[in-house]
């Protein structure tokens, strides 16, 4: 029988993730978009939701998913995040190829394009490191993965925040703030700064 606290945590997480998707589904912009463009937009929102779930799993903060189990799920949701990001970019590419080519080549007119592309590469970098983690030293793997996910969350949140899209103002603010907070919390709990090359001096 799950405790009241764990029910509340899961319910809260469900609301934080479910509400932005529900609000976006009511957006008037959907009426003027083709299905592939709508799918690409929701893949972006799901990417943001997964970026909130990832640090919670890595830190073992979710009831019923202690660190060991949590990290196994973390690997699966990480793969899902890469898929969601690729669906987001791919769907936008089909909708308007020149806009996506400009973004990928870092010559787009808006800052959010640059942030989004940096976030995409950071997510891919974090996933590649995870796949190759047995081939690099544990210290390098942890530091590299931590740097990649920090960049991914910060630029991903900046990207989402600056975009005038289907997400609602409040639900977007809450999910973005919580993704940053959860990432800061897990990096701090895992004492990631100790992995930095000059960490000994500050100890």
């Amino acid at each position, binding site marked *: 029988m799950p405790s009241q606290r764990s029910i509340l945590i899961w319910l809260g997480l469900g609301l934080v993730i479910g509400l932005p998707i529900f609000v976006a589904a009511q957006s008037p912009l959907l009426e003027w978009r083709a299905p592939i463009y709508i799918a690409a937009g929701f893949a972006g929102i799901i990417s943001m939701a997964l970026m909130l779930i990832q640090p919670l799993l890595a830190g073992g903060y979710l009831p019923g998913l202690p660190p060991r189990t949590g990290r196994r799920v973390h690997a699966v949701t990480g793969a899902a995040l890469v898929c969601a990001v690729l669906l987001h970019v791919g769907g936008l590419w089909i909708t*308007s190829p020149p806009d996506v080519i400009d973004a990928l080549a870092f010559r787009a007119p808006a800052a959010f394009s640059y942030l989004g592309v940096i976030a995409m590469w950071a997510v891919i970098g974090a996933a590649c490191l995870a796949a190759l983690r047995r081939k690099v030293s544990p210290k390098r793997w942890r530091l590299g993965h931590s740097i990649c996910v920090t960049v991914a969350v910060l630029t991903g949140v900046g990207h989402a925040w600056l975009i*005038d899209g289907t997400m609602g103002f409040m639900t977007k603010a809450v999910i973005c703030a919580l993704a940053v907070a959860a990432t800061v919390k897990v990096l701090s709990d895992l004492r990631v700064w100790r992995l930095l090359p000059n960490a000994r001096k500050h100890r």
Partner: protein
Amino acid sequence: MASSLSSRRTLLAAAGSAAVLGATGLLAPARAQGIAPTRSMRGGSNNYRPGAPVVERIGGGGFWMSGTVRRAGDGAPLKGQRIQIWAHTTEGHERDPKSHGATLTDANGAFRLEMPQIVPAFGQAHGHLAFEGDGFETVFLRPVMNSPRDTSLTADFVLQPV
């Protein structure tokens, strides 16, 4: 300390604005007496359709795109110049042929074309305009609306003779 900081800031600001003015050609003596040509904007040519027809109105209308076309140097208004306009609107995507239309400037170099309401797409509510024609360099503009609820947008061209 505060005054030395502020004077350093002033110096930096002055140097910065001089660099900007220099880079945009506003300080160049050769151009000082003339009006500089409009440069194409990033992403301006995306989903352009060469030769889109001149139309009375794009789709059902309700939104106004307007602006002026002048000649670089003396700033003389240019009559009969063809401006192509397109955007993501309530009636279609940027890529759809029906989202494109062209119009011609009047004797005052002004143009004005009614089109469907522009809606945010790819993160911003924006329109596209292209100058296509003989005698001047091609220019692509991509103005962004201050608010997605605006019902008009303007863009001005200063064309460089070739």
